[in-house]
Every structure is written in structure tokens, then in C-alpha cells.
């Protein structure tokens, strides 16, 4: 119901909105309105229900934090602490955990191809699209009460300011000062709720530059690639902590993804 209402709002939006805001905003807005993201959700649903692995089980009993199989609003509450795994997990880290425990899959096999491409998106990408879609309209509210959740937030914050890698970059090099651009892309400040909210409200997303659907684990991984560091492990504490820092900073934003990005 919610998704249908959104579509109507989009259709009724006046054509001349671009009078306000920057020229880049106009592009971003138009791109977001014509998003193929939901196509990936269709495939994601099939994957969610498909029995796989040695246990020949689907992911339908996977507990994303709101109980086994409950998807409504689950994404908006991540990352959070999971008692069974005794750690903080974001969506993809949790999906990996479910693949291992429910489906009996080997971690290496499940992680053989965590990031796909336009010709062949990955399982994680399809699943993320399907699951995130079911948090539309929910407020972002990651776990921040458990000590490990606060620890993840603090680690994420520290990582955000850590200058590292061959070229001495930190997250703040690009995302610390308002009004900056990398080539023609406007750079959001990522420790300011005002600028992080619209961003985290629309990831995961269909990314035009990749012509495919992309997730937060990928987004953070790709920042490290451009920071000229070695590669962070998928689902590692580091990546989860950065994700936690960003999501916690965006807390309270209404989720309206999966979105579309440049």
C-alpha cells in the first residue's frame, strides 16, 4: 500500500521543481523517480524462498531481528546486536549467518561472489533489494543500547576519522566538509545527520554507474578501494562498524529505498 502511495506522489510532483536546488539535484531527483531497483526485489523474493545448501533449506526462517521470517521493517532496525552470533550485524552479515546456519552452506562458498555486476548480480544484492523494500516507510532505528552496539558505533566513528592507506585518506577527506565535489559528483558530509539521512534512507540502491543493484557492504568496500587500502573482509567488524556509524547518524530518517544512485 505504502509503495503505491509513493508512486502516486511521484507522478503528481510538478514538472518545474528544478527551479529550486542545484542542477545536480534535479538529475538526482529524476533518476530516483525512474528506478529499476524493484526488479531486483522480484528476483530477491525468489531467492529468499529457494531451498539451497546441504540442508536444502530456504532463508524463510532467517531471523533479521524481528523474529524468524519477519521482514516488515526489519532492514530499518539494522545493524544491531544478535545474541545467537554474539556480535553486531548488518543485513548482509546476517544473511551470510543464515546461509551458514539455516542452509548449512560453507562460508567460503557463500562468499565466493558477494558483489555482482550488471550481467550477473549477486545473491546478496538480490536479497538486499527484496528485504530493504519491506522497510519502506519505517524509521531507521539501528540498535544502540547493547554495549556491543555502542562499541560498534564508537569504532565506526574512529574509523571515519582514521587516515590510512597509500594516499593518506580518511572518510573525511571526501565526506567531511560541506559543499565539496569529486569531479562532478556532489559529496555528502557523512557525520552530519542532515546529509546522511537522505542517503541512508535510500541505500541499498540501483547504481547507474554500475547498471546494477548495490549494497552497503559494497559501498563501503568500494570507498576503501579508492582510499588505496587493502580490501576489507565481507561482513567484518570494520565494515559493520562504519555502517553502524552511518546508520546511527541517520537515525530517525524514514526509509524510502531501495533507491537509485549516480
Amino acid at each position, binding site marked *: 500500500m505504502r509503495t503505491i502511495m509513493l508512486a502516486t506522489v511521484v507522478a503528481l510532483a510538478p514538472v518545474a521543481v528544478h527551479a529550486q536546488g542545484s542542477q545536480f539535484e534535479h538529475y538526482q531527483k529524476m533518476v530516483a523517480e525512474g528506478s529499476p531497483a524493484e526488479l531486483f526485489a522480484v528476483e530477491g523474493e525468489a531467492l529468499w524462498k529457494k531451498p539451497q545448501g546441504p540442508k536444502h533449506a530456504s532463508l524463510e526462517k532467517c531471523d533479521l531481528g524481528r523474529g524468524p521470517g519477519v521482514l516488515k521493517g526489519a532492514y530499518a532496525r539494522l545493524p544491531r546486536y544478535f545474541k545467537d552470533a554474539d556480535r553486531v550485524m548488518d543485513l548482509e552479515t546476517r544473511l551470510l549467518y543464515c546461509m551458514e546456519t539455516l542452509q548449512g552452506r560453507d562460508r567460503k562458498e557463500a562468499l565466493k561472489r558477494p558483489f555482482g555486476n550488471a550481467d550477473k548480480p549477486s545473491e546478496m544484492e538480490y536479497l538486499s533489494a527484496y528485504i530493504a523494500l519491506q522497510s519502506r516507510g519505517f524509521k531507521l532505528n539501528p540498535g544502540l543500547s547493547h554495549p556491543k552496539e555502542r*562499541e560498534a558505533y564508537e*569504532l565506526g566513528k574512529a574509523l571515519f576519522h582514521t587516515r590510512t592507506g597509500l*594516499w*593518506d585518506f580518511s572518510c573525511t*577527506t571526501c565526506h567531511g566538509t560541506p*559543499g565539496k565535489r569529486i569531479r562532478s559528483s556532489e559529496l555528502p558530509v557523512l557525520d552530519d545527520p542532515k546529509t546522511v539521512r537522505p542517503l541512508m534512507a535510500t541505500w541499498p540502491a540501483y547504481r547507474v554507474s554500475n547498471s546494477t543493484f548495490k549494497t552497503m557492504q559494497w559501498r563501503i568496500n568500494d570507498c576503501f578501494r579508492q582510499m588505496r*587500502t587493502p*580490501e576489507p*573482509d565481507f561482513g567484518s567488524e570494520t565494515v559493520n562498524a562504519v555502517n553502524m556509524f552511518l546508520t546511527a547518524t541517520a537515525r530517525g530518517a524514514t526509509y524510502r529505498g531501495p533507491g537509485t544512485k549516480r
Partner: protein
Amino acid sequence: MTTKLILGAGLAALLLPAAASGEPTDREVQAIMKRDFHPHGQATMDRLDQDAVQRVCTDTRNKPPAELAKTLEADQYKTIRFPEGSLLGDWKKGAAIAWSGRGMQWQDDPKKPSGGGCYNCHEIGPERTSFGTIGPSLKQFGKLRGNTPGMQRYVYGKIYNAKAYSLCSEMPRFGYTRSLTEQQMKDLTAYLLDPASPVNK
């Protein structure tokens, strides 16, 4: 090298449990990163070893105490190897290096020369309409400043090791990290200073 010595202390860091509240120390962050990353292609694990510059800039959130900054900047200046003779290479090649954002990443072929990625952050020549604004505009750089040997030395040195001039600059140390070759840095210097370069038209 002084910088390497200070850096060595960070390598011995042990994984200490992060405090239940409050930000983890630099040392803890380093240990967690070392555990959570793996080498990929040319991006080896030693790239996570923080040197003195990175450590001080992280700790002070890019606002180092003036005295310390001065000392470390002097250390950084000593790393610059200025070639003999003119520092002006081929501006045409420099233009291509300034535009390319490739190089030194884990998927890049280490045998291929790296780009400088200059346009990612700077406005430079009129021939490119897509440019970043993280760094200052370098429009008409040589036209406004001339191309005396002193100016050539400044530009070459800044590309080689920007931290010698401003400790917590966001600009990479292209020569110090062997990201660009001597010839590439000369070509970039020419792109900024040569009167024939479109930058100065």
C-alpha cells in the same frame, strides 16, 4: 628515515578489547583493521601501517600543534628527491595524467602507469568541465604565478610530497609513495606551468 621509525611503534600494537564506551584508541583501531583486511592485488597489508603523519593527523583531527607540524613537515621535505635541471616535462602527457583517476588500487594492473587523479579534486584546464572542488582551483596556475625555477620546484615538490608543505593536507604524497614516476611529476609540473599548456591560455 624519521617517519619510518615512529611508524614502527604502531606495528607492535596488540589487540586490546575496546572499552565498553568511548572511542577506541588509534592502536586498537589499527589492530582491528589489520585483522579485518586482506591483501588484494598490489594493495598489500603494509598500506595499513600508519606513519607519523597519518597518526598525528588522525589524533588531532587534522589540526596538529604548530611546533609538531613544523618538525614533521621538515622531515617530509627531506624525502623529496628533486631531479637535476628543468622540472618542466611534456604538458600534453601531464594533461592525461591529471585527468586519469586510475592507479594504485587493488584491481589496477601494477605494470601500468598510475594516473594523478588531479581533476578529482582540482579545477585545472579549461578543456575539462568535470572537476572536483576538494582542493583549490589551479586555473591559470602558471599564468598567474610565472614559471621560475623556484615555482617549478614548489610545484614538483608539492606533487612529490604535499605533507612537506601542509602536514595534514588531503593531497596524496605521489612521489614519496612511488605512485607517480619522476617523469610523470615533471609532465604534471609542465601542465601547470608551461605557457603553451591550455591551463595558462
